[in-house]
């Protein structure tokens, strides 16, 4: 029956097509991994500096910063992009100072960032983490400008 044959062919195209493109995706993933060492600033992740950055990522995650902010454009859209905040603020001290100075009860009538009561070590860690992210070589130097 020609009709049944056609469904079988559609099925084969589904399986064949999926396998084909999954393999191609793996090939492109492999290429990506080859290219990343030049782009992802992994040199910063070595040694004591690397440990500090790892700690900073932990602080970032445990306080769910992504719940309000974007990092390289991904996350929530309530608060500014932080992938380039190191460049925008100019120093790790400026970042630390900002986070530490958030009022506990916020600023009346405005979007407010919580006071996370981070220790000195945690503040340094997260600032270093954000510095590391700002030095990742994004394509076309994204974001388009310093505002993020």
């Amino acid at each position: 029956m020609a009709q049944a044959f056609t469904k079988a062919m559609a099925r084969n195209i589904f399986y064949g097509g999926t396998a084909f493109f999954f393999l191609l995706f793996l090939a492109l993933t492999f290429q990506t991994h080859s290219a990343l060492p030049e782009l992802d600033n992994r040199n910063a992740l070595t040694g004591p500096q690397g440990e500090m950055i790892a700690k900073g990522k932990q602080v970032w995650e445990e306080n769910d910063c992504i719940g309000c902010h974007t990092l390289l454009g991904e996350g929530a859209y309530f608060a500014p992009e932080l992938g380039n905040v190191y460049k925008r603020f100019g120093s790790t001290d400026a970042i630390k100072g900002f986070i530490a100075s958030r009022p506990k009860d916020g600023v009346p009538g405005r979007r407010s960032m919580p006071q996370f009561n981070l220790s000195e070590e945690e503040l340094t860690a997260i600032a270093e983490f954000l510095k590391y992210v700002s030095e990742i070589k994004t394509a076309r130097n994204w974001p388009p400008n310093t505002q993020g």
Partner: protein
Amino acid sequence: MKYKSQKVAKLYFIAAIGLFVGQILFGLIIGAQYIWGDFLFPEIPFNVARMVHTNLLIVWLLFGFMGAAYYLVPEEAETDLVMPWLANLMFWIFLTAGAATILGYLLVPYAQLAELTKNELLPTMGREFLEQPTITKIGIVIVALSFLANIGLTILKGRKTVINLVLLMGMTGLAVFFLFAFYNPVNVVLDKYYWWWVVHLWVEGVWELILGSILAFILIKTTGVDREVIEKWLYVIIAMVLITGIIGTGHHYYWIGTPAFWQWWGSIFSAMEPIPFFMMTVFAFNMVNKRRRNHPNKAAVLWALGTAVMAFLGAGVWGFLHTLSPVNYYTHGTQITAAHGHMAFYGAYVMIVLAMISYAMPMLRGREAANSTKSQVLEMWGFWLMTISIVFITLFLTGAGILQVYLQRFADNPMPFMVVQEKIQLFYALREIAGFIFLSGLLIYIVSFFVGSKEPEATIEGEVVPT
């Protein structure tokens, strides 16, 4: 209802609707916070309300998918579910774990929740949509595996229809890709690269197989069109989904530190991702036009057609608008993203679950085929109110996004984020109004379950003249 074990679906559907209400309430909270920045601060800061909103969405959709599977698989396989007790047990486990997680988000500062749940043993918290404590994630895996075992063994025992197989593949893919949620390297680029293997390969990948198979099931049942025709087109559609969507993952790899070739591969393939949604729309309308019978459950047919259209508009069209890398360079991570996200999720996944509930619930509650006309009319009011208001939410966020992109990214003197947010306030206010209308639609939809239950079922008015 042909098989007694299909009954387990009812609990899943009820939980789904309940969590849906919770999702919308929290959506209104964060929508309000966009307008009044310190609303509920510091007790419920924005990020907490947001994670409740998004996690409730994902969990209620999972309840919906599982309920849909528990209903349709026995009927397709022509045999009872092998372990209905397991389905019930997993229901309560999933619901309890989910509720505990949400309460954890709300009652305890997130950093403390991380400590309490020993996140440091295997850190997986603190990423978008994956905020759940690691132990919850492990629980999700267990629930998913039990579900797959139950469904898989049932299908093995019975008739292996295309619909069953596609649903099983979709749900297996869902479980497999969720495992990437456990991979959380320090290297931010790698972290992001594989995070998308959960998110993109879910919603622009295997979830579309789930969507397609449920839609096909509803169309077979309500139109009487030959199964062979519907199943052939289901294969064609899902083939196009994966052919475009797998490499289409590259449209998330433009600006996160991944190499530049993704701008080409990602743009070309993701630009074609609307094709399967377009095919689904043509497919759904064609099947209904070529139907051999009128089905008394008009509401279910409306949901099914609506799903195809809204999925095409929200996921297909709105996705296309910002998928090409030269455009995305400016729109990445803005209200444009939020606009697309809302209509895509509603059109594709919210609606297909509601379509399935619309089809199955009457029978799960003892009807032969459909609710009373009175009940269906109310349900359809719910459909239109929710659907039209999501269109407006999307339009308002698109407006906000265009202005935001211009002022913050494109203009010669770009303005700071917070200044721009101030300037687009009007759109947020309009969005919130639309959000309340959406809630009213949802409430009317829920009321429709309780109205007209004593009235007689709607009937078919005459046979369709065969073409």
